[in-house]
């Protein structure tokens, strides 16, 4: 039970960690000062959430591990985030598409997690959901703007959605920790979120004059720790200080 709960928390937190790290790269390099502020704020929200989750995970592990040990000192194969969140900031369309495809899921997920029997997780979800509602509004607005903007922006956004679509199905795969926690009334049954998710996503895409991808081929692996080639480089930066200067306080 303890091990399942610990793994379950990592499954949630790693998504926010990796997504927050990714969008943090953009700070100061966005298309406008306003988007820079928003993207920095989103990164800040996600990493703030991550701290609550890992602090809780560290408490459950109860072996002296800290939030930073968990966040920064695992091997690549031990991170269990979905492949979607590690995808690079190819351009602003990709960045917003990645966030939108995750935010819609995140919102549905937290809405359920709020009902968890685990009071700590329920409390974290309650706090996070306010932030994620804003993330979803921000990213879906950009899907609309870029989808129904200029010809160039529409092409770019369509390309981003087409490319990232393949990573959406994994959001609804259940891990062993998921199954164990669902049966305890602690975890969220992600398989049940799938229909609502595609309904919401498709509605926004249609409003944005974008074509809903038809591909039925999906990628998976992140939840099992099998990542894309982008992940190692992301972790190299994330872990740089902890690896170079082990066992120090900052």
């Amino acid at each position, binding site marked *: 039970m303890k091990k399942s709960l610990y793994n379950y928390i990592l499954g949630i937190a790693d998504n926010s960690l990796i997504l927050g790290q990714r969008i943090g790269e953009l700070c100061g390099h966005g298309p406008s000062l306003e*988007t820079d502020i928003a993207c920095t704020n989103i990164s800040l929200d996600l990493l703030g959430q991550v701290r609550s989750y890992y602090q809780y995970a560290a408490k459950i592990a109860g072996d002296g591990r800290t939030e*930073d040990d968990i966040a920064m000192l695992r091997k690549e194969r031990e991170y269990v985030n979905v492949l979607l969140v590690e995808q690079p900031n190819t351009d602003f369309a990709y960045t917003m598409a990645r966030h939108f495809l995750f935010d819609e899921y995140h919102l549905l997920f937290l809405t359920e997690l709020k009902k968890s029997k685990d009071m700590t997780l329920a409390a974290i979800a309650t706090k996070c959901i306010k932030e994620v509602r804003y993330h979803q509004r921000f990213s879906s607005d950009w899907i609309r*703007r870029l989808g129904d903007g200029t010809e160039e922006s529409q092409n770019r956004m369509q390309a981003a959605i087409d490319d990232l679509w393949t990573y959406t199905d994994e959001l609804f795969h259940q891990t062993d920790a998921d199954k164990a926690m669902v049966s305890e009334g602690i975890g969220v049954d992600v398989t049940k979120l799938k229909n609502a998710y595609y309904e919401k996503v498709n509605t926004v895409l249609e409003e944005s004059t974008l074509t809903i991808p038809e591909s039925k081929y999906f990628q998976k692996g992140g939840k099992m720790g099998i990542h894309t080639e982008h992940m190692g480089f992301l972790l190299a930066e994330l872990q740089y200080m902890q690896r170079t200067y082990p066992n120090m306080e900052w």
Partner: protein
Amino acid sequence: MSEEQIRNLEKQFEERIARDEKIEPKDWMPEKYRQTHIRQMSQHAHSEVVGMLPEGNWITRAPSLRRKVALLAKVQDEAGHGLYLYSATETLGISREEMYEQLHTGKAKYSSIFNYPTITWADIGAIGWLVDGAAIINQVPLCSTSFGPYARAMVRVCKEESFHQRQGYEIMIKLSSGTPEQKEMAQDALNRWWWPSLMMLGPTDAESVHTEQSMKWKLKRKSNDELRQQFIDQTVPQADLIGLTIPDPDLKWNEERGSYDFGEIDWDEFWQVVKGHGPMNKERMKARVGAWERGEWVRDAAMAHAEKKAERKEKEAV
């Protein structure tokens, strides 16, 4: 308007400032006042925005989650200051696009300190402690400057800057009470940032071209040399307290003056960086211009979308 009328207006204007009244955007003001404020305020806004780059450089590599979150919050504050200051400058009749244009073509300056690289984590501490420390000394007097929007912006900016300064110093405390490697990192950062921080307070009074006029308009309350002395006197004890050594062999307490005497500043280096040949001038501008150019299609799309939306709304109304 006749010359005499203008002289009258100018006289009334100067009297208002002398009475500590605030000048507001819609008030009459001499063209030189307007231009000086556009120059200084936009330069200030540019500094906030360019300043995001050296610190943003460490967001993905911050050593702990707590530090990463704090750094993100800090850089977000800087962006907010930039936005706030650009808006305040716009009240003087210049658009943000024009100000960007001036920055990107090198016509407008930004604080030279950001043309130095952040090469270790301790640099993030040193920037907070020293650079924000020097910035506060420069900026606190601006909270009571004569132009209303600038004065009000500075009240808010200064509050946040003093928080950043404490945060930076706290990074330095942690490093200097850490392992020998960490302490060395902190000392190295102090060595590299000390002199550029002193230069931040501007050229010596003898060389400063804007001081006199700026004093009259309360854009300045103390001379560059006075501010520099204040910064040194405030910072040296802070370095002592955490066991770091100021990299100036001539630094010593002057009992008579009640201040620290300090060594010669390398003004050649200062002018080299101001003229665009510092270690990071080209990279900083490349990053800013690059972000702006890469973002063009995004901004165009946002405009096009807003127009389409407005059109649709109009049609619906009909």
